[in-house]
């Protein structure tokens, strides 16, 4: 097997370096204020002064950035000096746009290009050495399981085995077109948006009663059904149809290769038949929703057949209680689930929402801006409106409050009611900055008049114009795939190693952001770039930098959802105990409500759950798989439980031994992605364990009855159906099923089953 000795990081950084070097050098010669220092380097001193004074508080003196401001090292989204000059003039400093324009902006741009895009990357390049990547077929298996919850198809596996990289690329394209991938993508975005809080499994009715009855009088149309089974099912189906609205937009954009910018700019939302009934929304393209052959909900004489997964773009144009003509959509920003997930209060006046917008869509933590944190509260509240007059406050509020103002037409409970001074949506325009973004005011806003419509649409258009938007999208995908946060921005106490590691990773993130932009904002392009990257595929890392070394490689403790998908794919059904939200939380998952952070370090509880899973699943799956026709089996295709390794006289049956070992070899591959030879040490250890246990059972004869009998088919949740198996298994006279069950416990306990 060929191994790819990859230096992708180095190459990426070097490409960067050359581009930046060339542009800087060329422009410097003709128009810069740069001077040559004693060591021969060039630096724009005026730019350095301006940078240190106006930029360093967010971007840090060494350009490494802080959580309040992006790193400028390896700054792919900076473009060239002219473009960066323009960006500075239009958007910087974010709390005081316009302070640095003209020569100030061009000097600063020059300084940034030299100081952070040449010098630091040269240092970074020296740090990098080699990453050895795993074979293409291993990547294919991992990518397929992670992105679609299924093992790769035989066709894809064969193609990758022969033509490797090219076939891997094509196979990943295929994976990215499966329905399962879109669900996985939605899961990644939910880790940020947390709008699944409103699903029925977390709290029944949370979405239905999140809507105002006088805006949506059909809200309780579940009451139209008389049969309680039907009504309950319909209640939950409608609820989830509403709650899924933001994440269905993510899926729709990816499925149709539409730009991910529409996440905040789409002038439509997503409905299925059930939510359309509530919203009374108009489908953009008309047509009828899909009807299924089997009822989605049924009880008594009542039934409903509309496909709950058939979501389509639509607009809410009907009159609301306090607004005629419906809603001017701005992607997720105007969905009730985003708005109530991040609520406000009369005194918070949407600042919470503004902070979230900066965090989620601009990768900027407002709370980390220097000056925003005091050592004590003395002097807090200078002036009647400190957020507008106290310099300790305005450093953040000047950035945050214009965005908060843009949300003024959306109430605490996410209703659209024009802001005014009466009780329905109280807004005091004199105590907060007018609506705007990044120094630009919303056009024609007059605090004396009823506020205009479309402010969030305007915000969406500004967000996607900001270079940080692309990086924010990359961050969501990166964290979704790697299961860990990006390296934190360095601070004054960071070591050089931490800074170098951050710079290397940031350069890659910026490169991914460039890929996103150049692919017309196709979110799939980012996913694929990561899957093909040496960071994701790293098998061995030979770097000096320990921080960077730890950040490379995509191995992570599978989330409960990922684990369930894997079980369904490789064993045939999920573990019933993980269907409960509370149990998933115990396993380290989130409920999008009060538990919003996944645990990636296992506790003893997690380890105990793994062990219970291994025993329960092994017991059920082993006898069940052997009871299925050979072609339908997931675990033992081509092997029969009657195949013992020895005959009645104890003489080894060579063919059977080979078949048993081959079955173990296959399980190592599908469970762990380990390609092992039949006579490898690990296979011999496993076979010996199987043999030992078989002998032990046969000699002690504890009773042939199976603890997990296989008499009926199981559904994908492992629940017993009413369909009877043709060849049920209830006893095991030879104890071979017992031994295989024990072997399955061994395999399902393996670390590599839980880390991918």
């Amino acid at each position: 097997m060929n191994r790819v000795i990859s230096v992708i990081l180095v190459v990426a950084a070097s490409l960067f370096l050359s581009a930046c070097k060339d542009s800087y050098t060329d422009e410097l010669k003709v128009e810069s204020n740069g001077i040559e220092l004693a060591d021969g380097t060039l630096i724009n001193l005026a730019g350095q002064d301006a940078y240190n004074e106006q930029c360093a508080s967010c971007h840090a003196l060494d350009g490494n950035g802080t959580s309040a401001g992006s790193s400028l090292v390896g700054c792919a989204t900076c473009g060239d000096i002219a473009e960066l000059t323009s960006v500075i003039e239009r958007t910087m400093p974010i709390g005081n746009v316009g302070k640095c324009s003209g020569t100030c902006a061009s000097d600063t741009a020059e300084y940034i290009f030299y100081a952070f895009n040449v010098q630091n990357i040269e240092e970074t390049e020296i740090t990098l050495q080699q990453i050895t990547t795993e074979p293409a077929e291993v990547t294919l298996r991992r990518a397929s399981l992670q992105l679609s919850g299924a093992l790769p198809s035989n066709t894809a596996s064969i193609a990758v085995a022969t033509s490797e990289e090219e076939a891997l690329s094509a196979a990943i394209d295929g994976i990215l077109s499966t329905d399962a991938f879109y669900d996985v993508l939605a899961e990644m975005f939910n880790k940020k948006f947390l709008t699944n809080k409103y699903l029925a499994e977390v709290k029944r009715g949370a979405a239905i009663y999140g809507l105002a009855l006088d805006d949506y009088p059909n809200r309780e149309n579940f009451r139209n059904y008389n049969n309680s089974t039907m009504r309950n099912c319909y209640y939950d189906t409608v609820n989830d149809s509403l709650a899924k609205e933001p994440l269905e937009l993510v899926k729709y954009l990816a499925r149709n290769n539409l730009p991910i910018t529409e996440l905040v700019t789409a002038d439509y939302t997503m409905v299925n038949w059930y939510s359309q009934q509530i919203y009374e929304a108009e489908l953009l393209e008309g047509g009828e929703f899909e009807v299924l052959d089997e009822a989605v909900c049924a009880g008594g004489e009542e039934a409903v057949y509309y496909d709950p997964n058939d979501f389509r773009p639509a607009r809410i144009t009907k009159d609301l209680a306090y607004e005629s003509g419906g809603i001017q959509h701005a992607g997720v920003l105007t969905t009730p689930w985003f708005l109530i997930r991040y609520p406000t209060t009369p005194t918070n006046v949407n600042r919470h929402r503004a902070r979230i917008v900066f965090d989620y869509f601009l990768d900027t933590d407002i709370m980390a801006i220097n000056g925003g944190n005091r050592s004590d509260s003395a002097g807090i509240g200078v002036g009647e409106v400190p957020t507008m007059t106290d310099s300790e406050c305005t450093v953040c509020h000047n950035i945050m409050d214009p965005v908060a103002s843009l949300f003024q037409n959306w109430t605490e409970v996410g209703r659209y009611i024009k802001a005014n001074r009466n009780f329905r949506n109280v807004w005091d325009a004199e105590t907060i900055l007018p609506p705007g973004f990044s120094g630009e005011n919303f056009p024609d806003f007059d605090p004396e008049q009823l506020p205009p419509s479309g402010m969030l649409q305007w915000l969406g258009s500004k967000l996607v114009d900001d270079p940080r938007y692309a990086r924010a999208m990359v961050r969501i995908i990166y964290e979704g795939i790697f299961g860990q946060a990006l390296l934190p921005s360095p601070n004054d106490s960071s070591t050089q190693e931490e800074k170098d590691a951050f710079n290397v990773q940031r350069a890659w993130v910026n490169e991914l952001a460039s890929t996103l932009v150049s692919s017309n904002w196709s979110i799939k392009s980012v996913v694929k770039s990561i899957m093909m990257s040496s960071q994701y595929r790293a098998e061995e890392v030979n770097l000096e930098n320990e921080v960077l070394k730890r950040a490379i490689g995509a191995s992570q403790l599978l989330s409960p959802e990922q684990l369930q998908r894997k079980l369904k794919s490789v064993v045939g059904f999920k573990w019933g105990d993980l269907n409960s939200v509370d149990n998933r939380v115990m396993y380290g998952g989130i409920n999008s409500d009060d538990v919003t952070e996944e645990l990636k370090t296992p506790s003893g509880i997690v380890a105990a759950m793994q062990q219970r899973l291994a025993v329960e699943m092994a017991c059920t799956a082993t006898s069940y798989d052997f009871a299925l026709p050979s072609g339908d089996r997931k675990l033992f295709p081509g092997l029969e439980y009657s195949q013992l390794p020895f005959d009645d006289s104890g003489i080894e049956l060579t063919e059977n031994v080979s078949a048993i070992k081959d079955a173990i070899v296959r399980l190592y591959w599908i469970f762990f992605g380990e390609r092992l030879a039949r006579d490898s040490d690990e296979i011999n250890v496993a076979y010996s364990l199987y043999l030992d246990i078989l002998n032990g059972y046969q000699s002690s004869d504890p009773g042939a009855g199976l603890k997990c009998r296989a008499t009926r088919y199981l559904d994908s949740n492992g629940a017993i159906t009413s369909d009877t198996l043709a060849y049920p298994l209830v006893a095991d006279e030879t104890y071979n099923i017992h031994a295989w069950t024990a072997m399955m416990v061994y395999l399902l306990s393996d670390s590599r089953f839980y880390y991918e």
Partner: protein
Amino acid sequence: MKRRDFIRSIAASGLALNLPLLSGQSHADAVGGRYMVMVNAGGGWDPTSICDVKGTNGAYGHRQGVLNQGNTNNVNPDPSKKVGDIQWSSIPDTVSSDETVLTLVESQYDRFFTTYGERMTVINGIDTATNNHHTGSRYIWSGNSDVSHPALAALFAATVSPSSVNLPMAFLSNGGFDYTGYVVARARAKSVGFFSEISSPNRISNTENYLPDGAEDIYAKIFRAQQERLQRQISSEPLQRKREQLSQLFGVRSASADLEELLSPLSELQSNVSFEDHWTAGQGDGLKQQAQLVAAAFKADLAAGATLHVHGFDTHGEHDSTAYSLAGQLFEGVHYLMVALDYLGIREKTTVVIGSDFGRTPYYNAGAGKDHWPLTSMLVIHGDDYVTGGRTFGATTSDFNGLEIDPQTGKASDSGLILNPGHVNAELRKLLGISEHSLAKQFSVPESNFNIFV
């Protein structure tokens, strides 16, 4: 063989030589089997409605749009509601128009402070210097507003172990600020009923196992083989990140064998310490459930630090009708915790710290709510060996602003210092006996000479 004994036998045989990264930071019997609980009132509570009472002071009458004549509270302090120098709040009529509710809440306050006041230190006038929930929670519970510091209970769990076996859920989190700084694994226990299943993986019932024993304990044999395989994986794994993950798993798997020890104390509590008898049926049951599991986990030597969490204190609207009742329920939950610890014989080994993100304004907004305010309080309930309870340390002005505090007396002093969460955490670390531990030094808090706990 009991699973715990079995695991110990593996350790004794040398299989566990490769110390897992996390458990290596536990220190057996460092402070003699002590426990620590952080009780988080999520959202930012109002100290003036609890233990830093101001009354109908009219201090903010000049502010436009402020209700209640600019009073900080809608009720004046009652001098009789005092233990030592701990003064607690009376209950205003604005809490409810229902007399039974008023009586209930007042009884919860009174019972809490009269029962625990003698073993309690109240810390007032803690300046968080923030109105942000995240920053405030982090600062209060870690002593540093930086993201990189672990919560006090996590740090405690990592430095103190009551057992020579690694704790499978050394730090048990029920929510609130629970960052670990990677010094200890964080365990969540949402589903108490599931414990009996996972604590004995191979058991179907008391008389039946999934994997029946053959000539030997088959499950134990597999477990041993799997740990051996894990060791082979650790030693052959070239990728550092994976190697660390495998080591972590090896450690927690070794410790997870003790989980069944939880069942006995949990069952005892469920049978003998009911929610409704301590004190009121239907009051603070969520917190009581968390407390029950935490107490059982401590008793079973499975955990050393824990968080309890109740949210809802972010009372921007209708403050009085929410905040007092919620505090009453919080007191019910803490009381249940103390009773459960007492029943299990470990109350005297446990330190309970109660706190919140920050405080609330000393005046009411137009919605009769209270907004964020940087000054707050914390309550510490000591084990029996602590004899100088009934003490209030720190102070605020009559209109609930910060004061400089004399580090020795805890009283206001012009030559004193502003007390902040860093100081409080430094003193709590000393109280818990972990301030000199290498992990505590790694996550340092400011030097403090505030003599909070004498």
